[in-house]
């Protein structure tokens, strides 16, 4: 292992293999007229295969920037991101991203949107195979009846479901979710969280997700990465979420550790602030 942790992390003794993703001392600077703006500074994090990692922090703290260094949309100014030991140099379907804004083509139906992604990542698969995979994934997110509809005819929750089907059907090595439920109402959000938890379990997927919802993290994540405020944001603390899977929302909320973890997260986020 190359990465050296500057902070003592909770030991993950069961995982001794090479991590899937290594964020190694990554710093990202955006130059501006008023001088360089250091968005994130010296961030190091390892993500192992099969893990669900949530990143939480105040808006503008650089969560998305950190995510972008993994997805390949942002190039670190210092340090590097490695996947299976290989340096990440650009975006690719092995690190499929679900964007907050859904990013569906409005002129393509739900089916065509998913098919376009699958077809361009696996052009050699037979048409019948591709058709089967697309249908399977759209059905999985509950859109079996709405496949032929175009995004403008779908609600926000349904659009995000299409985006999620599009991401999962590629079986990415790591799935990157950038505040995927941020724009949804509370009820749809909870439904989607449960669906995502199920699909992640079925696919045995590795997920890196940015959010600002502590309860969402506690329900979904194995580890909760909390970031300090920018500029020069870095990882402040990492919490292990020990609840066994599959998780039941009401059950874990009865667990005394739930409120302990929740308070620690909220303390970290809001405790250090003098003025809200």
């Amino acid at each position, binding site marked *: 292992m190359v990465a050296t942790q500057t902070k003592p992390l909770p030991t993950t003794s069961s995982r001794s293999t090479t991590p899937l993703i290594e964020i190694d001392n990554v710093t990202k600077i955006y130059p501006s007229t008023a001088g360089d703006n250091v968005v994130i500074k010296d961030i190091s994090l390892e993500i192992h295969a099969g893990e669900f990692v949530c990143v939480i922090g105040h808006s503008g703290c650089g969560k998305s920037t950190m995510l972008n260094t993994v997805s390949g*949309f942002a190039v670190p100014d210092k340090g590097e991101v490695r996947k299976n030991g290989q340096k990440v140099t650009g*975006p690719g379907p092995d690190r499929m991203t679900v964007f907050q804004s859904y990013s569906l083509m409005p002129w393509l139906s739900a089916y065509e949107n998913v098919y376009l992604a699958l077809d361009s990542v696996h052009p050699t698969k037979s048409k019948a195979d591709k058709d089967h995979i697309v249908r399977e994934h759209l059905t999985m997110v509950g859109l079996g009846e709405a496949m032929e509809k175009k995004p403008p005819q779908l609600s926000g929750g349904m659009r995000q479901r299409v985006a999620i089907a599009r991401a999962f059907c590629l079986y990415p090595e790591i799935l990157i979710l950038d505040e995927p439920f941020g724009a949804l109402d509370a009820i749809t959000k909870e439904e989607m969280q449960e669906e995502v938890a199920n699909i992640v379990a079925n696919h045995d997927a590795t997920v890196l997700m940015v959010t600002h919802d502590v309860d969402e993290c506690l329900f979904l994540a194995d580890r909760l990465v909390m970031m300090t405020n920018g500029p020069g944001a870095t990882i402040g603390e990492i919490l292990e979420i020990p609840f066994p899977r599959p998780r039941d929302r009401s059950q874990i909320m009865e667990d005394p550790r739930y409120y302990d973890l929740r308070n620690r997260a909220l303390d970290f986020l809001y405790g250090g602030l003098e003025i809200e």
Partner: protein
Amino acid sequence: MSASLPSKGTMFAGVNITKLWKDLLPPTIAITLFLLIWEGLSQSKVTLLPGPSSLFTDERTRTLLFFPFYDRGGIDKGMFWQTLASLQRVAISYTLAAIVGIGTGIAIGTTPLLSKALDPLFLFLRTVPPLAWVPISLAALNKNEPAALFVIFITAVWPILINTAVGVREIPDDYNNVAKVIQVSKQKYFFKILLPSALPYIFTGLRVAISLSWLAIIAAEIVMSGIVGIGFFIWEAYQNNYISEVVLALVYIGMVGLLLDKFMEWLQAQIMKGQ
């Protein structure tokens, strides 16, 4: 369809007569008033321009009005053939302008260097009015017919080109990000993302261009003697002081211009259905 309309008016054959009446009455009154004032002005000799009634009272014009399909050879043809000849020129040049405009627009929109190099030139050229192109194209091409075609082409190409380039440049980052993650092939990117995304802009350009090219054909033909076409028809009628024929030709030009715009609007609605 008629049953679902909450209507208070009288219905006839599925058409709401009351609504139709309300829609048509104001423009009918306005047009009638306009024609009456015009007629009054020319009857009272305030202007030498013949009134609208001259379309019927002037014998030559009456012939042209009632026999649009006559053909006595040469350039002595009915209004239908004159208009058709002009429309054909527009069709040829406009098609060419669409191909060149969309093609170049996409190239410029996707290549920042090309855009930097050519933008100033294009912004300058597009401000040249159609009529100013006439002597240049005559000098360059030596013959009336290709010169007329070139004038229409050069007038119509800019709005198509510039709108297409903007449309391509304005493809939302969202779509481009998806394209990058799924590493879509160049061909798929072009047909599934670039073209549909830029299509509304392209159509805006196409619609502006069809009106402009119809304006340009008149300018182009007016100074090009000896060709069949509504532009030269106007010029010749004016030279011979057949002013009521000019009035008749204006009616044709206005109607065709309106129809062309409506056709593009319809085409746009058909192609962009469901977007």
